[in-house]
């Protein structure tokens, strides 16, 4: 099973990365040391090569965060590089601006374009988005090539070099310092970003955006932020490109460049920040080497590198989806397991309403899927400090009711009130902010993140530090509090010994407990649990029942969907029975057990 081992090693790298263990710090220190000595030891050709690698790394870093982590595959980053390069080149040669003024103008223009393009295209999903990135990449490329002020296809020449306080930067080695300083800062900032409250939210964007929304993350806004961030990185690369090469032409910003950047991200492994460096280095070096070697093997002229790269990419994607960084990481010394979070004060807690007050009121809820009526006239009320069970045969519509109440699905009628406020029609993140937390029927965890981080997503709304604070590392206090709270909830559900393991490596029953811990980390008023006991063994079910009982005593209200009658009957205060989307009965467990309609519909065939 070498592939699975590779997968787990990859998981370990990414998980370890996210906690920044001591092994990674040593690797980073070595990398920085190498970077510093390189220009003094290597001949000019290699320094130039490293300059190109640095420029590419900046762009690919943005791609890694966008594509690998958030799942937005973009073939259009080169457009932003081009916009910045042309802006600073145009301003410097046509209007006599200083390069620093050009930097400000370039980044401003790139940010504006990215906001506009992102706002329009990020609503698209999956492949539509990628096609859109190709579309605007091509559109902008042709713009560069046709506007006469930009020199059309011959480009702009004689761009002045950057100067810092009188030191003019116009050799390869001097540019190396500027380029790699920028790149190293960007790498550090990206690593910090992914290891923070925002980082957890970003990691959930790719496959778990519904779960992220239910924990309060504004996924659309976050996607836009990442998009602009990646565009700004590309913009910096474009500015450096213009003032390093002293020349810009459209050719460097065409579709082929976009494909190259994506290839670098895929080769390096789009899951880890280091993938940007690895991928850029491998592709750039390989390209140079192939440009030298291949024409000697074949007599005809041509771009043989493209053929080789195309083949390489196809083979690589067939063998591994995670790129080469996980394979390379196995050569590093094994890091010590990350430490558990230190104890810290809990973040502010919500006040609990008095027991018995109606917390969640559902009146005549409706949902139709085309011609199919999935939920019809469902009404019930969940009071403070009680556990309400929602039972019914398979396909009765119980999960649909959950999705309607939590805001994941829009209803076709009916009123839902949480603590007096109307929540029907509101997005799930607004409902989460009002105090509703849920678990999902199909486990919705980010498999590659640790249990601790998955639960910490639940506490997203209890923190406030955003992406900038994350990059600048000013969020450490709040982060410590959030992680400590997550650790507390993990202990509470009994998974303390698995806290630092990857969530995807635990058995299904324990993953359901993680979901509950995540919901608890939000400090909710109302907890919606969708089949929490499915997949648990008998002893685990007993432990879960005790946990839920304790939560009830602490004042939490729980709405529970379950199939296991023994589990439910001994635990809940009241029951609501559904069948075919309609409400059959409501009342105490003993009454329900005797209700003839319920028995006819349901109780005959359960374990």
């Amino acid at each position, binding site marked *: 099973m070498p592939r699975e081992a590779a997968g787990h090693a990859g998981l370990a790298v990414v998980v370890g990365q996210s906690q920044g263990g001591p092994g990674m710090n040593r690797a980073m220190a070595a990398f920085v040391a190498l970077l510093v000595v390189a220009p003094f030891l290597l001949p000019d050709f290699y320094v130039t090569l490293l300059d190109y690698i640095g420029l590419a790394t900046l762009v690919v870093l943005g791609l890694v965060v966008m594509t690998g982590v958030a799942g937005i595959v973009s073939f259009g980053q080169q457009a932003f590089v081009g916009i910045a390069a042309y802006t600073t080149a145009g301003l410097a040669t046509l209007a006599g601006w200083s390069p620093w003024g050009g930097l400000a103008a370039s980044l401003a223009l790139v940010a504006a374009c990215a906001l506009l393009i992102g706002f329009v295209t990020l609503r698209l999903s999956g492949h539509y988005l990628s096609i859109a990135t190709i579309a605007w990449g091509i559109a902008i490329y042709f713009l560069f090539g046709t506007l006469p002020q930009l020199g059309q296809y011959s480009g702009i020449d004689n761009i002045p070099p950057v100067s810092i306080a009188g030191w003019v930067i116009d050799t390869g080695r001097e540019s190396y310092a500027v380029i790699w300083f920028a790149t190293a800062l960007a790498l550090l900032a990206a690593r910090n970003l992914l290891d923070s409250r925002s980082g957890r939210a970003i990691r959930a964007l790719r496959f778990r955006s519904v779960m992220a929304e239910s924990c309060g993350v504004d996924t659309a806004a976050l996607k836009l932020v990442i998009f602009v961030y990646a565009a700004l990185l590309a913009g910096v690369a474009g500015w450096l490109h213009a003032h390093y090469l002293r020349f810009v032409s459209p050719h460097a910003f065409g579709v082929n460049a976009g494909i190259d950047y*994506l290839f670098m991200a895929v080769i390096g492994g789009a899951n880890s920040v280091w993938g940007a460096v690895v991928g850029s280095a491998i592709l750039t070096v390989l390209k140079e080497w192939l440009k030298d070697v291949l024409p000697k093997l074949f007599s005809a002229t041509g771009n043989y590198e493209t053929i080789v790269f195309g083949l390489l990419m196809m083979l690589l*994607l067939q063998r591994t989806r995670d790129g080469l960084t996980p394979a390379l990481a196995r050569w590093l010394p094994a890091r010590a397991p990350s430490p558990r979070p230190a104890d810290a004060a809990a973040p502010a807690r919500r006040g609990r309403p008095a027991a018995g007050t109606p917390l969640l009121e559902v009146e005549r809820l409706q949902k139709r899927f085309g011609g199919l009526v999935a939920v019809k006239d469902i009404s019930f009320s969940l009071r403070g400090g009680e556990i309400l069970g929602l039972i019914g045969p398979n396909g009765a519509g119980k999960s649909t009711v959950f999705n309607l109440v939590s805001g994941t699905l829009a209803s076709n009628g009916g009123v839902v009130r949480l603590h007096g406020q109307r929540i029907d029609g509101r997005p799930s993140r607004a409902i989460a902010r009002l105090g509703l937390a849920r678990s999902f029927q199909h486990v919705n965890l980010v498999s590659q993140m640790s249990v601790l981080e998955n639960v910490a997503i639940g506490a997203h709304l209890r923190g406030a530090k955003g992406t900038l604070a994350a990059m600048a590392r000013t969020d450490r206090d709040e982060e410590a509090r959030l992680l400590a709270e997550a650790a507390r909830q993990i202990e509470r559900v009994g998974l303390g010994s698995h806290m630092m393991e990857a969530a995807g490596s635990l058995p299904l029953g324990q993953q359901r407990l993680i979901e509950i811990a995540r919901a608890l980390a939000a400090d909710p008023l109302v907890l919606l649990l969708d089949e929490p006991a499915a997949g648990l063994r008998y002893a685990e079910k007993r432990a879960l029942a005790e946990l839920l009982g304790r939560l009830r005593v602490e004042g939490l209200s729980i709405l529970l969907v379950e199939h296991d009658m023994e589990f439910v009957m001994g635990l809940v205060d009241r029951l609501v029975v559904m069948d075919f989307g309609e409400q059959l009965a409501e009342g105490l467990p003993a009454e329900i057990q005797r209700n003839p309609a319920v028995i006819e519909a349901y109780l005959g065939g359960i374990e």
Partner: protein
Amino acid sequence: MTGEIALWLVQDGVTTGAIYALLALALLLVFAVTRVIFVPQGDYISMAALTLGTLQLGAVPGSIWLLAGGGAVVAAIDAAAALRAKAPRRLVRIALIGLVLPAAVAALAWWMAPRKFGMAAQIALTLAIVVPLGPMLYRIAYRPLANASVLVLFIVSMAAHYMITGLALVIFGGEGLRSNAIADFKFDVGVLKVGAQSLWVMLASLACMTALWLFFEKSLYGKALRATAINRIGARLVGIPTALSGQLAFLLASAIGAISGILIAPITTIYYDTGLMVGLKGFVGAILGGMGSYPLAALGALAVGLLESFASFWASTLKETIVFTLLIPVLLWRSLVSKHVAVEDEEE
């Protein structure tokens, strides 16, 4: 702009639109059956057009090496699989399809090219060279990834496009080629001078679409393809092999691509890298049809052709920018119209 110019632009737009429509159909077909966003579709056009152009010059087209090489690679992969499965008897068939047939076509091309046998023979030879490239590409690049996500398949498509474009440059060089028209005369329809080539293009497009429709509605293989497009697992359960569907879809795609290339070759000069832009415009058409409906895709492609024609009249240097910028609101409209609420997220 006078009425005459407008009519001429319409004719031009409909002609190119007819070719984009064929491309859109091929793209939609491949996407529906294999979930591959087949960017290299346009490259078949370049290959076919350049092959035909080379044949008309009396030279041997280098694409026979691509055919032979591709066949050899496929034969090697299949042979390795056959040996691993301990089924050596398959080797004969593998060698026949992968080695003998391509070599035969290559030899035929070698013999026929300098002799310049009429247009029909050249077209037939071009088809024989380019069409097998489709299933070969499927076998090499896509079949091992049959279960990958749409995005991974998309990246593979870009890689394949990259590779094919590079190969086209090596094989045909950087110069563009234009072939002779199938028929040269023009005749008058009212104020409009309609070229016979344009008529050929539209007729051939219609014929292709009709043939495809008949294939899907009436033949067993066509229905099998539709079944795979609607529900892959269900199709497998009733005995339709996924690999067969994939190969058939790619065969149809390369056939349509080759025909499109033969049709477009007399109209514009084709270079080794023209394929991407042409393919992408066919894409715009497919997306206008919502990636789901063939008639809408054809209509959408027609609209793209018309738009390009008029844009090139008003702002010829910016026509590409205009066409591709207009894709974005269309995508937006499409994704709003077909809003399907994701309650459960995709598998990781």
